[in-house]
Every structure is written in C-alpha cells, then in structure tokens.
C-alpha cells in the first residue's frame, strides 16, 4: 500500500483547506495532469495565484507529487478515492475531482512514467552492404562475403531533450550473420510460443465423439 512522508502530508493539508475554491482546485489538478503528461496548458497557473502565491505553489507541487505516486503504484480510481479519504482526509468533493481526473488521465500518466529508465536503443531501420575479400588468386579457402550492417536506432539525447538517430555499425561473416538470423528467428519463435500459450485450443474431441457415436445410434 502507498505510503507518503509527513512533509507531503502537511502540504496536502493545505490542498484540503479553503485556500482554493472547488472550481480553482479543479483547475489546479487539471494543470497538474497537464504538466505531468506534457499536454499544452490551457491557461497559465499564475492566474490561480490570487493573494497567496506561495500556498498555491505548494499545493501545486504536493498534488503533483501525490498524483505521480498514484501512477507509480498503478492504483485504480477507487483505490485513489479510498486513499484520499483514509490517509489525507480530503472532503468528498475534492476526492471526486481528483479521482475523476485521474481516471481520465491515468493511461497518459502511466505512459510518461514508463518512459523513465534506461532502455536498449530502439531499432528503426537497417542499412547493409556486402563486401567480398579477395586475398590472392591461389587462395585455397574462400573466406566468403563480409556483411557490413548498420542498425539505425533511436536514442534519447539528454542535451537536445529529444530522440536522435544513432547508427550501430558492425561487420560479420556469413556464418556469424546466419547465427544472428537464427538467433532472431529463435527469439521470434519464442515470442510466438508465449503468445500462443494464451490461447491453447482444445483438440477437436467433440468431432471424434460424433463419429464414434454416430454409428451406434
């Protein structure tokens, strides 16, 4: 079950107070989701500041942290509502606001959370060419063609803050390439086998019964 630290709990007390009207609170939560899922903001958060910008800033940060935690634990809206009620003592109106918006945005939130982490580069394309090495005319053992392969991958660039293309180059002989291809095929087979497990079909027992019984009736 989700646990949150006392600092955050204190800050959330503000969110449950009368510092914001329900209307403004809804706007703020919407802003939180927009900021977390990188959607375009409708109007600036500054318009909600009113007379207490520091309080609003704190509520904004704390609610955003809380929502990120929900997403991280993969809670469903019902669990969210329960948590807000039991742990944070929110009033029913605000619980409804948060859980409804959470239900609406949960998938996007999970997607964004899923993008954090180190992953293997994503292959989008491949370039290749074949070279043939001739050593001398009395070469007894032909070494065969050499394959030069360049996998085009997409990697996230920290400086540019966007995915960039980056090639992975390598060279291999026929045997090695065959090995690679077999490995890939093997992997595909494996995946297909796993996928097939999901729907094992029963043998056609019924048909056999029919034939067996048909004659004796």
């Amino acid at each position, binding site marked *: 079950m989700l646990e949150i630290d006392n600092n955050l709990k204190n800050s959330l007390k503000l969110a449950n107070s009368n510092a914001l009207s329900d209307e403004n609170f809804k706007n703020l939560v919407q802003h939180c989701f927009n900021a977390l899922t990188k959607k375009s903001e409708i109007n600036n958060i500054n318009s909600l500041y009113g007379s207490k910008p520091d309080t609003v800033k704190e509520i904004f940060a704390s609610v955003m942290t809380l929502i990120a935690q929900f997403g991280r634990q993969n809670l469903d809206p019902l669990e969210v509502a329960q948590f807000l009620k039991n742990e944070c003592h929110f009033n029913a109106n605000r619980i409804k606001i948060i859980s409804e918006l959470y239900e609406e945005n949960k998938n996007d939130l999970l997607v964004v959370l899923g993008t954090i982490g180190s992953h*293997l580069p994503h292959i989008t394309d491949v370039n290749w060419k074949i070279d043939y090495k001739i050593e001398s005319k009395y070469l007894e053992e032909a070494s065969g063609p050499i394959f030069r392969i360049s996998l085009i991958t*997409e990697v996230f660039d920290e400086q540019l803050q966007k995915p960039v293309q980056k090639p992975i180059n390598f060279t291999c002989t026929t045997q090695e390439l065959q090995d690679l291809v077999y490995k890939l095929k093997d992997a595909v087979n494996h995946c297909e086998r796993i996928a097939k497990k*999901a729907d094992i079909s029963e043998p056609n027992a019924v048909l056999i019964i029919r034939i067996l019984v048909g004659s004796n009736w």
Partner: protein
Amino acid sequence: MEEVDSIIIDSLRNIECDVDIEIHSLKDFDSELIFNSFVYCLEVINPEIKFPHGLPPSMSLRLKLATNIAECIKDLGYRGDMGYQTILYCDETELRRVLMFLIERIPRDNKVTNKEKEEGYVTKLVRQIEKKIQESLHKPWVPSELLKFGVDDTEKLILRQNYGECFSFHTEVVKLPKTLEQHSEILKNYWIHSLPNVTEQCSFYKLVPSLLFSDAKFLQKHLLMNKYDVIKNLVKEDTLKKYEESSDNNIATLRQVANENIDEYEHQTESKLPLEEEMERIIQEIKAISKSKLVMEKEIKTAGAKLSQIKDDVIQQGELLKESQAKVQLKKKAQAVLSKQENLIKLKKIVESGSERLVELANQWHSVQTPLLNEYRSLINNHSDQELKILEENEKLEKIQEKNKQIVNEIKEKERLEQQLLNEFERINKNVNRSAYTKRIIEIIANIKKQEEDIKKILNDTRAVQKDLNNLNGQLERSFTLADELIFRDAKREETARKAYKLLATLHSECNQIVQTVTDLGVMEREARNLQDQVDIELSRETASKLERVLYDLSEVKKENEILAKQISKQQIN
C-alpha cells in the same frame, strides 16, 4: 460407448463440474449429478445464465427449474425430445445425446477464464506478459513520428512500440515553499515573489523523478558531506608531504655548496705570487708546444696516407708487368711452333677433326634431343590436360560443397519442422487416444460398407422380381387378347362359344379384382408394419411409465399445495 463417456466426463471435470473419481460411465449418474452437469454446461456456454447448483427438495421448485433448463437447452438449438421429464428422469442414451450437444457448444477458451480466479501474483504477471506479447505481435508497425512517448495514444491499451523517447532517471533539487512552518519574513517574501513554480525549476524530463524522490535529498547531502571531508583530508596530507620533501632537498644542496666554497678558499690561501708568474709562463709555453705538436701530427698523417697510395700504385704496376711478360712468352712459343710446317698441318688436322667431331656431336645431340623434346611436349600437353581436369574437378567440388551446404541448411530446417511437428503431435496425443479412435472409426466404416453391399444386393433382387412380374403380366395380356379374339370369332356362330366368351370375360374381370386385392393387401401390410414400428418406438420411450411418473409428480405437487394451503389457512386462523 466407454470412450464417449470418458470424454464427456473429462469435459465436465474441465468446466469444474464436480464428478466423482469413481464414476466412469453415464450409467452411474444420479439425477442430482445430471442436473448439476446441465447447469454447469449452460453457465459456461452462456455466463449470463444463473441456476442454483444442486436439486432443491421441493417438487414444484424442481419442476420449475427443470422446465427453465429445458427451455435454455431448446434455445441453444437442441432438436430432440426435451422437457422437464428428460432432465429429471433421463435414461442413458438420451442423457448422452443431450450432454454431447451441450459440450459441443462449450466455448474453447473457458479453461483460461476459470483458472484465472485461483492464480497468484506471478502467474497473473506471466499471463499479462503473454497477452502483451500476443498483442504486440498482432500490431502493425507505426513510424515513431506518429507515436507519443513511444505509445500509440489513439488506442486504449498501453503498448510501448518505441523506446526512443525513454530518458534516464535524473533528479534535480526542487525548492518548495513550506507555508505551514514558521519561517523568517525574508524567506516568505522570496517564496511569494521570486520562487519560480516547480514546473519551471527543472525540465519536463526531470520533473517526475525530482518530485517523487525529493525526500531522498538528505541522503544526497550526507553523501556529499562525507566526500567533501575525505577530499579535504587527502589534500592536507598531500601538501604536507610535498612540503617536507622539498625542504629536505633544499638543505642538502645548501650544505654541498657551502662545503665546496670552503675547499676553494683553502687552496687559494696556500699559493704564492712569484711561482704563479712562472707557472703562467710555463703554461703558455706548453700551450704553444702542444699547438705545434698538433700541427705536426696532422702533417704526419697526410704523409702516411700519401705513402700508402704510392705503395699501392707500385704493386699494381708490378702486376701489369708480370701479365705482359707472360703474354710475350706465350706469343714467343706460338711463333716457334708456327714456324714449323708439320706442326701447322697437325694443327689443321686437329682443327678439322675437331669440326668433324663437332658436327658428329651435333648430330648425336640432335638424335638424342628430338625424342626427348617430343616426350617433353607430350608431357606438357598431358600436364595442361590434367590441369584442366583438375580445374573442372575443383569446380565440381565447389558445386558439391555448395550443394552440401544447401542440403545441410535444408536438413536443419527440416529438423526444426520435425521438432515442431513432434511437439504438436505430443500435444495432440496427450488428450485423446488417437489410434484407438481411428481403429474404431475404420471398423465402423467397414461395417457401413458391408451394410451398403447387402442393401444393394436386396435392391437387385427386388428389381429382378419386378422384371419377372412385368414379363408375366405382358404374357398374360397377350394370351388373353388372343383367346378373346378367337372365342369372339367363334361366338358369332356357336352358342357354346358365346357362353365360353361370357365366362372368359367374367374370369378376366374377377382375376383382375383378385390381383387388385392382392396389391392392396401388400400396401396394407406395409402400412401395418410402419405403424408397428411407430408403436415400438413409442413403447421404447416408455410413455406409460413416464406418464406414471408425471402423475406421481402431479400428486406430489398437489400434496405440497395442500400442505401449503393448510399452512396458509392456519396462519389466517391465527
């Protein structure tokens, strides 16, 4: 029938219908179990249908449930006799028929849905993974430009198709106002006017990590402190050592310099002035002498070189002289020899014989050379032929090698296929004893063929009989018309013939009637047989006993009704 029963019972167990392990055939099914198996089957086929499991004690309730179930089975398309009585008092064959019909309609994947209820976290996770892989295998490729964070956001399910936009975990220290705690005015002012919002304090890609792990900050600070201390200590030690080393060196050099200075000073104090002057003069002289000595040495060297050159020349000249002397002597001898005639002739002869021998040798050489040359040529030819052959062989060999490779690949492929097929075969084999079934099927087919042949034989017989009949009929007709004509002709003249004709006519019509009745009889007999069959079928359905049962049920219901009525009246009285 045993196999059929076992398959049916297996299927029932698969849908979690509680069949005892001891039950092996449908004969052993009691009414409770029959009822339950129907209910389970219906629930699996259509999850919306809900019936209680187990027969209720009250007869009227039983009837109601049974009729409902019968309705459901009829709705599914069952064509046989189906009513409440079939469910409550089912005989073996009928039960088999109904159960088979139901099991045929059980959806295939019910196993999965049933199992999921009891699974733990890990198996659920594995199932989810399997499902995800299945989905991703069915998904078409989408260019990454159309994806948002690597996910196609036009669909409901989350399926990452591109990891290109995944960023690594980086946090930044974000400053948040804490308005509920006591803080100085200045800090509060800073919070109100200057502190930017969290979203502006770091980039989007660091926002979530920074927010989620802001409570890990103190740990970071602590680590930093430790590092700082360690570095400080290291720096201190290093500089101290260096400082000490350098100072040591300095002292040593200083000491050396001081010692040298002292020595020199002592030398200078010992020497005296007049001696010094003389010394200088002598030194200058020595210098001059050494200079001249150097010059002289150089001259000696050059002179030596010249000497050796001249010596070489002399040796060369001597050799030349010797050579020319030898030449002169040879020429003198030749002169002496040539001056005599005999010697000249001899010499000529020798020369001639020499030339002759040369020719001879040339001939000999020629004779020896030609066969060898021929042989050589043929050998060369042979060699080239062989080379060609070898080249061909090589080509063949390469081809064979290629073929070999191909065949090996094919073998691999086929082995893989074989493995796959074997796996499949095993999987299929596990569930049903295939060979037994096929044997049974083949036997049945043979039986059917035999029966068909019998039927054909009988049909042929009947056809032959029909033909005979038709033939006889024709004959009869013809003979009758002949007799008719003859007697009619006579009848004009004779009285007896007229009588005979009348008799013939009556005979004919009566015979016709008889034939008609016989055929009618046949038809009637056939009808009677049909009816008898129907009667037999009806008898086999045991309608009488069923009716008895129904009557019994009716009386039961009536009794229950009476009891209920009594209870109601009692309550009313009370």
